[in-house]
């Protein structure tokens, strides 16, 4: 019994320590924004990595999601005879929910995992130690550019995802199922208001921070809990990073929605 209580205490202490460490980590990354070295080129590289190289994946995901929405929406709405609302149904669900969430999840899977593994490998190969020994702050040098790039790339990818998804829905609804194109576009423009777009942007900013934070943190401290640094720890850290990042994206999505709605 006492053992159990003690165990509980130990878990709680570990948790608090971990949270504190995460907080310090984030603080150092933020602090790195104004510090040398110049981050132009490294940020550019990261924007390319997170953004440009995710175009294809996001485009694919978005188009097919939009098409499915068109299909599902049509069959549901046609029961009530309100196919005209298809445009607003597809547009609203993409712009408010699916666009930001899907984009964040896909980017987590594609770029977040790679970032975690990259930093984890740098950790186990003593590269992060080497940076520290050159008096280069690894947070500022390695992670700050990723954070900035994430904040630039994710909202834009989300917008791209929204537009392509709407296009997919239009394709299915108007071209295939014969909803009037005018009704689709009119439903879309009249029901979507700036607040919806704004909510989508706010979400994608939050998701970008969460994803980069969790993925790089997990990589940075890969193997810390076990105390040994090897390839297994990196793969374990990567798995954890993707799972935790995805979960926190979904949870924070709910929280943001309930605050902004």
């Amino acid at each position, binding site marked *: 019994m006492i053992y159990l209580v003690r165990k509980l205490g130990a878990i709680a202490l570990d948790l608090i320590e971990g949270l504190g460490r995460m907080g310090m980590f984030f603080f150092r990354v933020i602090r790195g924004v104004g510090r040398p070295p110049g981050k132009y*080129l490294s940020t550019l590289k990261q924007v*390319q990595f997170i953004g440009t190289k995710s175009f294809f994946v996001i485009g694919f995901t978005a188009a097919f999601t939009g098409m499915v929405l068109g299909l599902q929406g049509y069959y549901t709405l046609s029961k009530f005879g309100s196919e005209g609302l298809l445009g607003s149904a597809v547009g609203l669900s993409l712009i408010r929910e699916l666009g930001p969430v899907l984009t964040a999840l896909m980017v987590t899977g594609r770029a977040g995992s790679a970032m975690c593994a990259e930093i984890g490998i740098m950790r186990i190969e003593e590269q992060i130690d080497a940076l520290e020994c050159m008096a280069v702050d690894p947070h500022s040098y390695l992670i700050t550019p990723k954070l900035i790039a994430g904040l630039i790339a994710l909202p*834009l990818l989300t917008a791209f995802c*929204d537009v392509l998804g709407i296009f997919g829905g239009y394709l299915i609804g108007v071209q295939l199922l014969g909803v009037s194109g005018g009704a689709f576009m009119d439903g879309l423009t009249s029901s*979507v208001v700036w607040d919806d*777009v704004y909510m989508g942007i706010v979400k994608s900013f939050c998701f970008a921070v969460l994803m980069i934070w969790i993925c790089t943190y997990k990589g940075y401290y890969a193997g810390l809990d076990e105390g040994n640094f090897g390839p297994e720890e990196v793969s374990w850290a990567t798995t954890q990073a993707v799972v935790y990042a995805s979960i926190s994206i979904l949870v924070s999505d709910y929280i943001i929605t309930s605050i902004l709605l």
Partner: protein
Amino acid sequence: MDRKGLELSVGVFLLIGLLCLAYLSIRLGDLQLFGGADYRVEAVFSNVAGLKEKAAVTMAGVNIGQVERIGLQDGRARVEMRINNGVKLEQDVIASIKTMGIIGDKYISISPGADDEYIPSGGAIQDTQPPLDIENLLGKFVFGSVDNNKSSGQKESGGDKK
């Protein structure tokens, strides 16, 4: 990858992303980037049940603005609207609250007037009509004091809702 190629690919990404964002916010989100493209008008209704901010303001079915704010004034509802600059409202227009479709959103419909003078920015619409109160209508229908043509449709929809 060399620097030029990198900058080019990032540039293309930023361009496409910003275009999408601009399309979403300006075309779909009706974001007003430049102030002064519209002017303010207010109207006092006895009841605005179901009307929300950002709801459309129309004339003859054409969108001419949106509801800016809804507040209370002496027990009545005071609605502020933004009307596009190109549209002039005569002093004797009538603002009424209507419903889009059967279960659609509430919006404000303004019927054109014939007065020579226009409402200035910040002015008020004098004549207003509250939305049809379905429960009220239903009650009147039950006690048989309402004209038949109009009430049959209302009764059905009211029944659906209940």
